[in-house]
Every structure is written in C-alpha cells, then in structure tokens.
C-alpha cells in the first residue's frame, strides 16, 4: 500500500492543504447533520453516510479539472457531490425531497446530480453505473476531448458483472477513465474478505490490461497524488486504471443499519485513522495550521450546513403535478 510518509514535510502550499481539510470538514459536518435530520424524520428512505471516507472524494476532486473532467459515483454520494462543488443547500434540499433540491425532489439521497458541474450522479444499483461512467469515457474519446471521468464504487460492486464487462471494454478501447474502488471493508454487513476470492481488489485490474494499485484512502494527500498520477496516465498514454482506496466508514451501511457485524473496538481503532485528524495533525506539525485556523474553518462549515438546513426547511414541497414532469424531454 502506498502510505505517505507522515514525517516528510509536504511540498504543497498551505492554501491547498487548507482547501483539502475544509473540504473534508464540510462533508463531515454535513453528514452529521444529515444523520441528525434523518433521526428527526426530515429525511427518509435509504440514507448512506460518508463519514470516515471524506479523504477520497476531496482528494480525488482536487486532482481533476472540473471544466473538462467528470465524476460519477454510487449511492453513498453526498460527499462526492459536495467535493464536486455542489451547493450544500441544494443537496440538503434534495435529501428533504424539496422542489429546490438538485433533482427537484425526485432523486433523494441516492440520486444527486449536477450536469453543469459534471457530477453525473448518484446511482442506486450496485455496480450498474460503472458501464455508464465508461460510456461517458467513450464520449470523451469519441469527441476527441482531453477529459477523464473518475468512477467511484464500493468493494461490494467489484463482484457484479457490470464491473468486469465495463473494465474489459475500457481496457480494449483505452478509454479515459479512472476506476476508484472505495474499499470500506463491508459490503453492507459483509466483510469483503468473506466474499472476494482475492483480498487485494486492485489485482482485479490485471485481467483487463490496466494498472491496479492500492492506496491509503484515509490520507487525503496520498489520494490526491495517486489519482493525479492515474489521471495523468489517461491524459498522456490513454491508459485507464483501477485504484483500490483502503478506507473505513464510521457509521452503518445506511441509517437503518444496527452495525452488529463489527465490534466497537474495531470502530474505535479505525477512528484513530480519521482522515480529518491525519491531515490536521500533519499540517499542525508542519506549522501551516494553527488551532484557531481550524476552529474558524469548522465554524464556517457548520454555518454552511446550518444554512443548508434552513434553506431545505424553508423550501416548498414539490406540487403534486410536478410528478408528471421530467419523464420525457
């Protein structure tokens, strides 16, 4: 696994690092509030919280050019949406099912979209969006564009046929796509080692003539650097790749998951590897972050989330007749 050396002083400027940290903190505070509002029944259905995995969405989004690149992910999508610069207000409003939500209250937690920001969803069927992202890559190549798409999915998705079919075609056609498996150890309640013939999921890339690599998904800088490298290989050599980002989710699979399949000790041990603390501690040690900076940052994130809740609360419900809209163009 490519662990970054915590003792080495980073080459990145303080503003860049603060951007990563604040990006993660915004997702953390947003997700805490989403969980709270779910408990208050303001949000319903399936709600998959991203806490613990923030370094991946934020590090990845920092590694691409939003003007020409794309992001697509599965149903644990709030973090990716925010990392893709979606307004927390329209994301929270969508969770509330309000007409002001990004999907006009028709998508909910699992189906966030922002066509302008090249955030292509938000998809609910495990693994079924992997061919879609590969199709976006086909479009990029077909049009002779310079972009790349980052396709995120969990460890549960790699056993779907759609994963293997799509990676094979991307390998044959050299499509501009980076496949990013966020291995958070559990496909719902199942330890991935119980259902995977290989425990190094990045090794699956070898079947499709593309490089595979394991990366520490709790280290935002390592995520950024490795995805940057994978994106560069797409741009310069038309080489797709598969990255396995080793991570951990601190909450249940969804809000209705009691989490009986893992111990409190395991979760506590994993929380020592909290991606926000890792970066915060590193920046503090490097002398580029004062505690007061961090507190200000946290205050801004909490404020943005509070405003998102206010916006969602104040927004109108969709009128009944809107249910007939958006079926056909």
């Amino acid at each position, binding site marked *: 696994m490519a662990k970054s050396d915590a003792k080495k002083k980073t080459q990145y400027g303080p503003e860049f690092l603060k951007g990563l940290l604040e990006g993660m903190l915004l997702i953390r505070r947003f997700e805490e509030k989403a969980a709270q509002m779910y408990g208050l029944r303001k949000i319903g259905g399936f709600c998959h919280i991203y806490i613990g995995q923030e370094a991946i969405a934020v590090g990845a989004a920092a590694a691409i050019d939003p003007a020409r690149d794309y992001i697509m992910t599965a149903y644990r999508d709030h973090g990716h949406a925010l990392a893709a610069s979606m307004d927390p207000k329209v994301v929270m409003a969508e969770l509330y099912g309000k007409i002001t*939500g990004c999907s006009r209250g028709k998508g909910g937690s699992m189906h966030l979209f922002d066509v302008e920001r090249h955030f292509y969803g938000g998809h609910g069927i495990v693994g079924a969006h992997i061919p879609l992202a590969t199709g976006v890559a086909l479009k990029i190549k077909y049009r002779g564009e310079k972009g790349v798409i980052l396709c995120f999915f969990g460890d549960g998705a790699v056993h779907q046929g759609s994963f293997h*079919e799509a990676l094979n075609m991307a390998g044959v056609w050299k499509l501009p796509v980076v496949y990013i498996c966020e291995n958070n150890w559990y496909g719902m309640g199942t330890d991935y080692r119980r259902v995977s013939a290989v425990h190094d999921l990045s090794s699956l890339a070898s079947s499709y003539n593309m490089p595979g690599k394991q990366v520490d998904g709790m280290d935002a800088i390592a995520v950024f650097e490795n995805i940057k490298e994978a994106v560069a290989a797409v741009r310069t050599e038309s080489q797709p790749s598969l990255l396995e980002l080793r991570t951990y989710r601190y909450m249940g699979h969804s809000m209705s998951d009691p989490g009986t399949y893992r111990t409190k000790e395991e979760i506590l041990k994993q929380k020592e590897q909290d991606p926000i603390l890792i970066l915060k501690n590193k920046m503090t040690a490097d002398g580029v972050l004062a505690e007061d900076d961090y507190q200000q940052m946290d205050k801004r994130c909490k404020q943005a989330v509070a405003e998102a809740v206010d916006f969602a609360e104040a927004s109108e419900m969709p009128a009944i007749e809107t249910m007939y809209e958006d079926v056909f163009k």
Partner: protein
Amino acid sequence: MPVIAYRDALNQAIDEEMARDDRVFLIGEEVALYNGAYKVSRGLHDKYGDRRVIDTPISEEGFTGIGIGAAMAGLRPIVEWMTFNFSIQALDQVINNAAKMRYMSGGQFSVPIVFRGPNGPAEWLSSQHSQALDAIYSHVPGLKVISAATPYDAKGLLKSAIRDDNPVVMMEAELLYGAKGDVPTDEYLIPLGKADIKRPGREVTLITFGKVVHMVLAAAEALAQDGIDAEVIDLRSLRPLDEAAIVASVAKTSRCIVIDEGWPIASVGAYVAWLVSHRCFDRLDAQVELVTSEDIPMPYNHQLELAAQPSVDKILAAVEKVLYL
C-alpha cells in the same frame, strides 16, 4: 418507388442519420466487421470506420450501459442487440438507468438512445431464442417502444427514433428482415405515437403490431372473401399508444379483436383490450377478444411452435365470436 428489404430499410435509416449527425453511432455484437448478425449494418463499418461502428465483446449489460452513459454525455447511440432474447441480460440498464435518468435527475439529463434488434418468435429455436418481449419494455415509463411491420415503417420509425431525445426501444423481427416493400427515395419520417390503418374496413377492428400485422392482413383478406369488411390497425408505437386511432376505429366498427404474439398475461394486447373495453364500452356490440401466443415457453418442434402462436384460423374464430356467427 424502389422495393427493398426490411433489413435494407433499417440500414438506410442508420446510414442517413449517421451521415446527418456525427453524434450518432452504432454499437453492438458483430455490427462492424461481420456486417451484423442479420446484415442490418452491412457496409456501415466500411463507410464510417471503427470510431462510429463499434464491435463489442459479448457483454450485453456492459455495452448497453456504455451506450446509456454516452447518451447522458451528449452522443446519440444506436445499441444493437443481436436479439431481444439477449437484451434480458441488459434489462437493468434499460429499466433502471435509461428509462429513469431524466426523472431522477429532475430533468438535468436526457438519454437520446435507440435500442434495437429482432424480437418475437422465429423458427426452430425453442424457448430461449423465440419469444416476444414487447410487454416487458412497454411496461416501463420513461421508454418509448416501437414495432415496425413493413420496410417503409421500419425506415421512417427508426429515423424518428434516432432523432428523439428519449430512449426508444425498437422491436424488429428475424422473420421480417427479408420482407420486401416500397420505400421512397426522398427522405421521410414517421412520428412516434401514431398508429397506421393498414386496411380500412367497417365491420370489425383488428388491432395488432409488428410481424403479426401480415398474418392479420391475410385474415382480413379471408374475411373479405366471406363478405366481412375488417379494419386492420397497426399500432406501430406501443408507448406512447395512439389511443385516438384505436377509439376512432372501434367507434366505427363496434367490434374489436386484439392480436399480440406475446404471452397473454400482462401483455400489450391485454392492455389495449382493456382500453377498448373502457373507452368504447357504449359503442361495443360484443366483448373484446384477445388472440395471443399460448401461455407456455416456445417448443422446438415446428408443428408445436406454430400451434403455440396466433394463426389466421385463431383470428377468424375470434371474428366469428364478435360477429355472433
């Protein structure tokens, strides 16, 4: 007017639309170097090359999803399924992704894509390669579904489907690919959602679609010999359905038989029969009859497989019922 085969009418439609719009491309198994399993794409790879006529591995879910993703991003793919029997491998992509993307994104994305290939019973193929799946696709909101009986309709409908901004499923038929018919040289389009009166008549309405249109026309000729004047409505579009054309015909004849080569339960024919019963209740002089395939998987033996499908005799028997003969 030139007389050409159904497969060549489809080929012309694809060729003309590819020439007209660079965003249109063809993707599927054997579509390029092999010129198509049923030769629908003959010559297109030579003309347009690897970029726009794309051979895939045997991965229906994968290449169907790739087409949908490309459509979300602004291309206009034509996905060829070697047969609709294999489309079942890709059903999740069509139902959960193509049909719903616009809705779930609050109108942000559209999916301008055509899925096409041969559907329905063929000959000597047993159950997995000989079945009509119109009902499965027609059940799903967010899809448009069309079924062409003639070369003229095939070309005009496919051109409209390629230009449509929504996912369109086009049901063709293996046994129709060689069928010949008039196709004008000048460009024309057939709008989606419009039925066609294939034979005007006054005494009984026969509603059908796809390959069976020809059988129903043969039944109508047999009826004419007996002095019975039947009207044959070819739905052409199963979704959206041309309710006005159906109602207008039954209002005129007061008798209706629906013929569908699919299975009876939850079928397109069953829905249309309900629609007629509901919309034309006061005009009907007899109950609506439904002629479908038998409610069994398709057998291999030729006598059995013919017996399992609609036939001229079955249609004539239904006509006798509604005319109280």
